[in-house]
């Protein structure tokens, strides 16, 4: 089955710093999603990005499907960005079954 690897596993930042999170996947997929899990456990979908680049405020994501990786950029980080970031991949349409990576745990300090 599809393997999903995220790096780094842990990241500590000072408020205002920028960071890049990486997601590598083992097979060709047409569904790639990034999620943020806040410290209370709620998972929020950040991006649906099977290819190309998208931006939403201070966050942006790029997926290069042919090279089987996706990047999540966080600029001018804030303490509210803390939590765990998950990448999930699979095949879009139909059942939409996703395979999740183990996550990157981010702590942003004031």
């Amino acid at each position, binding site marked *: 089955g599809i393997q999903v690897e995220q790096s780094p596993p842990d990241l500590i930042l000072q408020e205002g710093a920028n960071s890049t999170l990486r997601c590598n996947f083992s097979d060709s997929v047409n569904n790639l999603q990034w999620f943020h899990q806040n410290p209370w*456990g709620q*998972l929020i979908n950040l991006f649906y990005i099977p290819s190309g680049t998208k931006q939403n405020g201070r966050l942006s994501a790029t997926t290069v499907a042919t090279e089987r990786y996706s990047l999540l950029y966080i600029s001018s980080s804030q303490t509210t960005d803390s939590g765990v970031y998950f990448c999930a991949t699979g095949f879009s349409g139909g059942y939409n*079954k996703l395979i999740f990576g183990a996550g990157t745990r981010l702590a942003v300090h004031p």
Partner: protein
Amino acid sequence: DVKVTQSSRYLVKRTGEKVFLECVQDMDHENMFWYRQDPGLGLRLIYFSYDVKMKEKGDIPEGYSVSREKKERFSLILESASTNQTSMYLCASSFYLAGGPLVGDTQYFGPGTRLTVL
């Protein structure tokens, strides 16, 4: 906004008890999912359903069953709870999209139920 709710945020049960976790979504989604989340392992799919009364095993179905009698409700059942089922359980829903990838094919998650089995 999509809303996915779960019946409990925290639950404590004893070994051998039958446990019901309920999930309700209000977006008329066809797909519903149950995951468990454990430290270092990410989210693992237990079961999913793509229609009323339809279910498919995920990656770790052993020890669990599910029920989907109505489109908006998906229940996870632990027939005889064991300590290794202590975990965070997350429910999600999404549209069933035929014919290939479309923008908006996202999964929406509930707040989670942290289950402790003693």
